């Protein structure tokens, strides 16, 4: 029988709330992610703001019932647009009790979180498992979790012989009952998911869904209503629901680039999976190269031949490609590099998020190798920034590194469907004659820009070289040629900077504390700032998209705040740690750049926990730093 907590029995059955966070946690391969994605899509289709994020172990099949093997998904649904994974979950469905431990360590739950726990372990034939289960349930309750022990597998066994595959749809049914989701819509999504597997499979999954739905109705006194976003926020708009890697793939197609050359690397690869499935419909091709270096070389070859190409990778791949990127900088070859960051250094945390490759992107090549570095802050930007990156690469004859990260890569969100037009796409390749009197690097001495001959253009024959060269691309070791070439290759970015607008401050234009971020932390930082502002703190934030060139006007903005700090997901020394002084402290990566850029004493807070920053966590830090600031002021007063 079901053990509903006494607190719950007295609570009203239906609760109205503006947002809720749900998790499904399991061993690998139990379909938690599939169920969660479907639930998220149903919520999006019903008009809720949604953010889903996958919980991924590093191994494909880690040992069963191990905390480190926790695999699953979190869905945050709301009556407003959701920009991040949020704080603690309200409801978690768990297929065993052990996997919950790793989530507890990550601070995923709070007092009062409802745990819907598979109870079959209670009567397992292995005594150790029975003991583990009993101990865990007791501990969870002691820590304030409300545990509902549920015979999920047992109920599924009435429909299928092996519930390991299938109970996820039962859970989907449960969640759809708890949140009063549209059953027809959910079943339609299930049918789409299993379309390729045939009617029989769809039917079984529909039955599992129905059984779960009924089970929740009969046995759970849990019911929440999260109303959809106001209609005026959605009206007339069409939405697509994707993760950030799919958005990158869509961006590649929207940009007109015909080639993605890649080597498998987590967490970047799924962008290429998606492309490989649909790219032929726009006439493109995914080349899986023999290694990361070849992937970059192949893309550079294509770009040189007039078809600007893209390579998609992660940190270790960037390291391997760095010599190729230096060549593309030196020889001014357009190239788009999508860098989906993970935890580093070395193999690091392959499946987890970090913003640790900012400086490597900027400086990770020998010599002076400037190139455009931009960072997408939302899933939607992952799409649009690829389109921008292709254009920048060709206009400025340069590699462009587009930074995203594992948080964007695996987060799923509805966003406005792009309405692409022909001018998003690369124009057809120019094969008209080239005036042979115009050198291949006919640098404009003010902007450093130059038109580019492409193989096939008669009269344009030149020898691209990675050696120092003149404007005729002739190898030149003399001082003036090298200095001039370096000037021209750098000048381009000043020219690009002159076209940028200063960033917009989120919150008041002046105040006590300005938080500066970049990349996937946008939603969490702004939510934290909004909460702190609601409590009366004079905090604002600013989010950078362009890192090289840096967005203009930063110093003027910074001067309107008493304190500036960055919030990032990369390593920095805690100022209070042993041996850390003003001289020894190593700053977070953007902070380091901004300090050099503005000569302002910019502070930072950054951690490398491997998970996305939660707004509540950020808010606490901001308020703490602000109080320190107020303390300092009163001392000096």
């Amino acid at each position, binding site marked *: 029988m079901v053990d509903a907590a006494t607190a719950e029995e007295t609570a009203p059955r239906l609760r109205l709330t503006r947002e809720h966070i749900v998790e499904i946690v399991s061993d690998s391969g139990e379909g938690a992610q599939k169920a969660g994605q479907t639930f998220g*899509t149903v919520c*999006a*289709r019903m008009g809720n703001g949604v953010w889903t994020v996958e919980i991924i172990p590093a191994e494909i099949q880690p040992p069963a019932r191990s905390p480190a093997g926790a695999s699953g998904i979190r869905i945050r649904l709301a009556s407003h647009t959701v920009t991040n994974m949020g704080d603690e979950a309200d409801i978690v469905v768990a297929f065993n009790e052990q996997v919950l431990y790793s989530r507890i360590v990550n601070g995923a739950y709070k007092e009062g979180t409802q745990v819907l726990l598979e109870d079959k372990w209670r009567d397992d034939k292995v005594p150790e498992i029975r003991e583990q289960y009993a101990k865990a349930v007791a501990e969870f309750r002691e820590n304030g979790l409300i545990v509902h022990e549920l015979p999920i597998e047992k109920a599924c066994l009435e429909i299928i012989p092996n519930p390991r595959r299938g109970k996820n749809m039962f859970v989907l049914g449960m969640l759809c009952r708890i949140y009063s989701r549209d059953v027809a819509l959910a079943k339609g999504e299930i049918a789409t998911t299993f379309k390729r597997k045939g009617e029989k499979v769809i039917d079984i999954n529909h039955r599992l869904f129905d059984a779960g739905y009924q089970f929740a109705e009969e046995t759970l006194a849990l019911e929440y209503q999260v109303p959809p976003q106001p209609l005026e926020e959605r009206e007339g708009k*069409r*939405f*697509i*629901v994707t993760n950030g890697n799919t958005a990158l793939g*869509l961006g590649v*197609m*929207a940009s*007109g680039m*015909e*080639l993605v050359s890649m080597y498998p690397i987590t967490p970047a690869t799924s962008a290429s999976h998606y492309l490989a499935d*649909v790219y*032929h*419909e*726009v*006439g*493109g*091709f995914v*080349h899986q*190269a*023999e290694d990361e*270096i*070849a992937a*970059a*070389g*192949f893309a*550079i*070859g*294509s770009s*040189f*031949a*007039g*078809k600007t*190409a893209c390579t998609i990778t992660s940190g270790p791949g960037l390291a391997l490609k760095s*010599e*190729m990127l230096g*060549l593309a900088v030196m020889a001014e070859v357009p190239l788009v590099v999508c860098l989906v960051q993970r935890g580093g250094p070395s193999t690091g945390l392959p499946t987890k998020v970090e913003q640790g490759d900012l400086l490597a992107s900027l400086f990770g090549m020998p010599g002076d190798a400037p190139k455009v570095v931009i960072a997408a802050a939302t899933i939607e930007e992952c799409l649009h920034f690829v389109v921008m990156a292709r254009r920048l690469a060709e206009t400025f004859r340069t590699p462009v590194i587009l930074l995203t990260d594992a948080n964007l890569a695996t987060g799923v969100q*509805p966003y406005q*469907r792009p309405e692409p*037009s*022909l001018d998003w*796409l*690369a*124009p057809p390749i120019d094969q008209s004659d080239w005036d042979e009197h115009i050198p291949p690097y006919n640098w404009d001495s003010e902007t450093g820009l130059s038109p580019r001959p492409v*193989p*096939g*253009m*008669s*009269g*344009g*024959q*030149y*020898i*691209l*070289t*990675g050696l120092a060269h003149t404007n005729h691309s*002739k*190898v030149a070791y003399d001082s003036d040629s090298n200095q001039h070439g370096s000037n021209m290759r750098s000048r381009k970015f000043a020219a690009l900077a002159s076209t940028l607008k200063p960033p917009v401050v989120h919150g008041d234009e002046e105040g006590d504390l300005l938080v500066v971020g970049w990349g996937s932390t946008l939603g969490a930082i702004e939510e934290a700032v909004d909460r702190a502002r609601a409590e009366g703190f004079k905090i604002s934030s600013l989010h950078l998209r362009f890192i090289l060139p840096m967005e203009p006007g930063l110093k003027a903005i910074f001067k309107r705040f008493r304190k500036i700090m960055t919030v990032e997901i990369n390593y920095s020394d805690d100022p209070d740690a042993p041996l850390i002084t003003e001289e020894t402290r190593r700053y977070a990566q953007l902070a380091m750049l901004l300090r050099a850029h503005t000569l302002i004493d910019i502070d930072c807070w950054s951690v490398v926990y491997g998970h996305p920053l939660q707004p509540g966590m950020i808010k606490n830090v901001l308020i703490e730093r602000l109080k320190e600031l107020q303390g300092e002021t009163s001392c000096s007063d």
Partner: protein
Amino acid sequence: MFGLKPDWSLEVFERYFTMGDYAGGEARWCPGCGDHAVLTAAQKVLRDEQQRPEMSVCVSGIGCSSRMPHYLGTYGFHGLHGRALPVACGIKSRRPDLDVWVATGDGDCFSIGTAHWIHALRYNMDMTLMVFDNAIYGLTKAQTSPTSPQGLKTNTHPFGAILDPHNPLTVTLGVTNVSFVAQVADWNPPLLYETLKAAYRHKGTGFVRIIQRCPVYSDNFSKELQQNPDRFVLLEHQQGIPVDKSVSRQFPNRLEHDPSDLGRAFQLAADTSRLPLGLLYHNPDAQCYEDLSSQGVAMTPEQRLAGFNTVLDRITV
């Protein structure tokens, strides 16, 4: 001869290219270097085939041989050490209309670029792959290369190279989908020319290992071969490299070898006591990767846009 039709009338070209059209900067290899011969042979092939210079790209890595693009009048890509092949393959992938040549060396191809050598052979994209093998690192001044003979004194092995030299022919012949494998020596211009022409005409990767003189750092290695033609065996066959009598009589060892026979080619390549010259292996029907990678190149921007909208519609909620 080009230009002259079988009925003795003269073909009139809209543009006729002479050797000068394939000449770039003045070659700056050392006097007596075998690379000069390769450059001339390649230029002659281009001229005789009337290849439009603007439609040709010569890609190279780093090393003495990799200077070759600078001396050609075509487009050129003088890239990174060991990485000529990925670039060449990338060029071909979406521009199958371009004629691609690769100039690489024993260090560039058989050492730092090994991964790409193996995989490019498997991709078998239509290009002429010339490996200038002088058994030494010349540009960086006399370090041991993978093909340096055992005992060769170099700056990295002053007491003589330690290991048996690597045999690039057996490795090449062992790669799945390899389609054209030949070996020549730079000091036999007619054979060099005919071999490069056959590689150029072959659809697929025409791998030609060119045993090449370095008069400065590995003179002993090539001198010994030059002075002893019996160290070679000339491969002859109707399907092989056409060999003039004046060439064949220079070689005391000659052998009839059917280039479609991969097993026999492997045996000949493995016998390092007698180096085969000519065409070891040829399969004109091997799959070329650009036939797959160039899917959709002919699509117009309008078609791409329509295709993209279809993709978007499928995921629109």
